[in-house]
């Protein structure tokens, strides 16, 4: 670490952002806050690549014929969209950006338990990203983000190995992040900060980290097996060589289904933070919300076979996986119920983060309920590999995870940068994103139910009207995502100073200055009350609770 110099400009505090401006002080930083910023910039970059692929796909789908791109190119586009969005945006989004920044602040620690591993995880992420980008530049991958064998391992003539290596390396970045969170939450909580006083964001990231460390290695070894099969032509998963392609699907989804919860659990954590703050109420049923996170993480590991209903898995196996899949609805339902109950009789302020959160609750509910449709084998057989599935998981991943990421970003932006963005712009783009999202994906439910298959660049003419609607929605959504990029950057230069606690929120992160100093707190804070004590804050009129 570089030394902390005296503040050079008069009257300005030394913060984690301005204690040194050298490039080296960023690239070799061990400060969790700076690493979070590095992650934020990186995932925004990958989001734009994945987004560009989506734009091209939606343009192609404006007309029933394949006219903009070739079929092969289209295959590469949706693969690149999936790989970039899943592995290089959604999975690291809330954990690696907001989690990295906030967990030490929320538990009242100076840093994560292993700062060097934290930096290493960012480098691994970037190296993995470079491999994935290299596969794109070299000519792309056409297998879909799921890399199903034996197509990926034997027949595909694209750069599968490069992409697989990228995801393999990226996996270790996730593992290191998860490891750091688990250890930090276990061992570095401030005095008085018991488990049941922890912000629910920490609980949900703890649950996420469990999936990181217990699921990711299985994906890693599976990708090794695919690579070996592809390079040495040994039939691990190729039926013509004695292997079983369904085994690949088992191993792949053992990680990749829980990965859905990697995306949505942190989102749930964000929602719990934001919804309490903008309802000025304590969370309804703290323990239920906390344990439902852990329950989702554990149950999430028991349901992967619902991706294999039509793959040739045994019917008994399918039945068991179907029943188990329904069970995930219980803790998810508990959460939605508790958030709604938190809103009840709260003094609700519809500020930007809250708008995103309310959007999350509605869209997540639709995504979750359609999840029950596809958990039933009979319905799933009908809609497998149609746009119904696309719509369902985008309601969870975009309507859920990205909405929550935006909520979190707007909620903690003043903390991270010390600046306020334009509230009106924020509300406007939240609305734009909500409308654009529904316009994009709701027609896809209908398309899928009518039988339009996914992953084709051309389709039957009767599907055109709904596809045009969807593409129009995508352009609205695109504008909705570009606006925050602009006004958030704008706020860095021209935004008003935020002060330590602009939203009058509880939680240790709001008790230090914005942006926080390198060591987070002047002295280790002591906690003597529950999380979300908004009722107390409202009664005493205490805006910045002191310790």
């Amino acid at each position, binding site marked *: 670490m570089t030394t902390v110099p005296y503040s050079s400009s008069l009257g300005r505090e030394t913060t984690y952002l301005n204690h040194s401006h050298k490039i080296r002080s960023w690239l070799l930083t061990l400060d969790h806050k700076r690493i979070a910023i590095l992650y934020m910039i990186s995932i925004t970059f990958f989001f734009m690549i994945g987004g560009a692929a989506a734009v091209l796909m939606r343009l192609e789908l404006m007309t029933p014929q394949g006219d903009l791109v070739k079929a092969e190119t289209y295959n590469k586009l949706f693969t690149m969209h999936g790989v970039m969005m899943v592995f290089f945006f959604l999975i690291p989004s809330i954990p690696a950006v907001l989690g990295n920044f906030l967990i030490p602040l929320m538990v009242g620690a100076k840093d994560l338990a292993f700062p060097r591993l934290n930096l290493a995880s960012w480098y691994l992420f970037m190296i993995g990203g470079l491999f994935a980008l290299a596969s794109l530049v070299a000519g792309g991958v056409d297998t879909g983000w799921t890399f199903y064998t034996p197509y990926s391992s034997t027949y595909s003539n694209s750069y599968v190995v490069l992409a697989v290596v990228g995801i393999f390396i990226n996996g270790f970045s996730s593992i290191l992040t998860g490891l750091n969170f688990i250890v930090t939450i276990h061992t570095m909580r401030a005095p008085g900060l018991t488990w049941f006083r922890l912000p629910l964001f920490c609980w949900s990231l703890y649950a996420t980290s469990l999936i990181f460390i217990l699921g990711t290695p*299985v994906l890693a070894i599976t990708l090794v097996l695919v690579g070996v099969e592809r390079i040495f032509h040994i039939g691990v998963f190729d039926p013509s060589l004695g292997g079983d392609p369904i085994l690949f699907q088992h191993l792949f989804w053992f990680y990749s289904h829980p990965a859905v919860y990697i995306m949505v659990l942190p989102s749930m954590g964000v929602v719990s933070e934001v919804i309490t703050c903008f309802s000025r109420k304590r969370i309804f049923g703290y323990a239920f919300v906390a344990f439902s996170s852990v329950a989702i993480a554990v149950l999430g590991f028991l349901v992967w*076979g619902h991706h*294999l209903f039509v793959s040739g898995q*045994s*019917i008994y196996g399918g039945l*068991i*996986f179907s029943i188990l899949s329904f069970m995930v609805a219980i803790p998810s339902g508990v959460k939605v119920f508790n958030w709604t109950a938190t809103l009840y009789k709260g003094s609700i302020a519809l500020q930007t983060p809250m708008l995103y959160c309310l959007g999350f609750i509605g869209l997540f509910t639709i995504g979750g309920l359609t999840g029950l449709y596809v958990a039933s084998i009979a319905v799933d057989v009908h809609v497998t590999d149609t746009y119904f599935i696309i719509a369902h998981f985008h309601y969870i991943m975009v309507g859920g995870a990205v909405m929550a990421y935006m909520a979190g970003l707007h909620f903690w932006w003043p903390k991270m940068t010390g600046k306020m963005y334009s509230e009106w712009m924020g509300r406007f783009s939240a609305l734009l994103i909500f409308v654009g999202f529904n316009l994009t994906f709701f027609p896809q439910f209908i398309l899928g139910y009518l039988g339009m298959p996914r992953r084709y660049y051309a389709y039957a003419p009767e599907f055109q009207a709904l596809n045009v609607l969807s593409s129009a929605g995508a352009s609205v959504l695109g504008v909705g995502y570009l606006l925050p990029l602009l006004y958030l950057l704008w706020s860095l230069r021209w935004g008003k100073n935020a002060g330590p606690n602009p939203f009058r929120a509880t939680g240790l992160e709001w008790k230090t200055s914005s942006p926080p100093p390198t060591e987070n707190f002047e002295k280790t804070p002591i906690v003597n009350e529950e999380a979300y004590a908004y009722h107390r804050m409202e009664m005493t009129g205490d805006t910045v609770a002191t310790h």
Partner: protein
Amino acid sequence: MSSQHVISAKLYTVIYILLMVLLVVTVGGDLMFESAMFRTSFALGIAVIKALLVVLFFMHVRYSSRLTWVFAGAAFVWLFILFALTFNDYFTRGTAPERLFEAPVGGIVVRQTPVNPEHEPSSVMQRH
């Protein structure tokens, strides 16, 4: 450090000797026993004992906090989940209900309207 339990070199030596004896026993069992099934379970059983000795003493889990137990245990619980639900599929492949739905054409379930209702079998089971 006061909070850490230090295992004596003597105990380590005892465990090491036990491990070596068990190694000899594994090989002996492999050469001695007739039944293949028994030999496999014997060899794996010994492996489990050896692993437990290493984990409990060399890795001093026996003297560690409950949290260490939980994490060491969680790894194996998750391994069990992976095996149990994977084999839940493999051990029930091709059993009766699956036959009912077995696809007659190219692996895809094809629902056809009967051309001649009299000749259409009442159940897919009779198809070939």
